[in-house]
């Protein structure tokens, strides 16, 4: 069963699409979905004002599939607290995409704004474009960061990605903003592009690998060893890496793998290598 919502009348107003989860739509006709009310700014407005809704009975598998077509940069909470089923956004995905998600699959063709996969428990999110800040982060003041599931971003991500992360995997093909994995507690982050720095600030656990260029590392990290691969638990990456442990100010056991050949300016750390033997 597949619902297709075409965003034919876009609005600048913040559009809260949290009611649109596969569980909520199960068994509803296209008409019923069109009459569902969502917050646009401060008013509850029928979906039909913004989307026309089609129901394509795919029928071959049981779980509900929702496809939203259009530039939803102002939308919020697409796939919020989703437990199963599949959602696909053909266009931009907006803020809080897949927030506190427990299961199911969300794919977004375009970009997404900040707080994507915030507090995620399980399931998977794939972003073909770029993501904003706080990817998989915890809510303000909370230490319940992303604890499971996978977020794959083919573009780049903003700052403080994976803040207070506890588990799961973040895989970024592009580059990442500063404070990647700030206050990280567990899980793994793989960034294939560059990162300006302040990686793993205040981290107490978890593993981060940056394959591209990194400007500098915080003083609260110490070099541990040179490795031939980066073992992030959920994924392994071959190649020469400097491995740093920290954040020492938090007595952290986090690991940061920095690619050797991309970062010749890190060679200074080799003189500290031999000190333990």
């Amino acid at each position: 069963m597949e619902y297709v919502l075409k965003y034919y009348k876009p609005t600048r107003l913040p559009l809260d699409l949290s009611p649109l989860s596969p569980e909520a739509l199960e068994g509803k006709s296209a008409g019923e979905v069109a009459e569902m009310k969502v917050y646009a700014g401060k008013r509850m407005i029928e979906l039909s004002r913004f989307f026309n809704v089609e129901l394509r009975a795919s029928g071959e598998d049981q779980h509900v599939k929702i496809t939203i077509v259009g530039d939803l940069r102002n939308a919020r909470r697409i796939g919020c607290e989703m437990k199963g089923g599949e959602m696909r956004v053909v266009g931009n995905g907006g803020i809080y995409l897949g927030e506190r998600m427990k299961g199911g699959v969300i794919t977004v063709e375009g970009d997404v704004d900040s707080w994507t996969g915030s507090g995620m428990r399980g399931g998977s999110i794939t972003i073909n474009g770029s993501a904003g800040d706080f990817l998989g982060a915890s809510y303000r003041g909370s230490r319940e960061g992303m604890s499971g599931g996978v977020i794959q971003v083919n573009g780049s991500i903003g700052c403080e990605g994976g803040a207070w992360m506890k588990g799961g995997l973040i895989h970024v093909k592009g580059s990442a903003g500063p404070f990647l994995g700030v206050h990280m507690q567990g899980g793994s982050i793989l960034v294939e592009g560059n990162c300006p720095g302040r990686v793993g600030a205040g981290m107490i656990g978890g593993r981060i690998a940056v394959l591209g260029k990194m400007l500098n590392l915080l003083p609260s990290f110490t070099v541990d060893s040179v490795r031939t691969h980066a073992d992030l638990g959920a994924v392994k990456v071959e190649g020469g890496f400097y491995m740093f442990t920290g954040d020492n100010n938090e007595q952290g056991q986090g690991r940061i793998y920095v690619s050797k050949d991309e970062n010749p300016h890190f060679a200074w750390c080799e003189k500290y290598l031999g000190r333990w033997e």
Partner: protein
Amino acid sequence: MVGECLVDLNGRFKLVTGRTLIQGMGKERGKFTEEYLKEISICELDPEDMKLLSIVEGELIIVKTEFGEAKLVAKASTRAPHRGVIFIPYGPVASLLTSPHTDGSGMPSLKGIEAEVFKG
């Protein structure tokens, strides 16, 4: 990028905007007074940097950032040495140059912005 911020020969600087006593008094007195309008279109540079770019006190200069450009009156900073750092008091002129990006914190970047300085 972070960390290295030395003066490059082609005039790349870090812009810092902030309060000054006169700007503070001016905002209380009135935002269209002569004194206030003069104070908020001043750009303080380190005397060494002015020599490097052969800029003279009181000369009209153009400051460019990724977000805009503005004409300002150059002034030798009394708070030197601060090579590579230029200062403009808060106000509509500085707002032409500051960054709207809030890095998810709600706070636009009003200090430490990449800027270039050209003779007017």
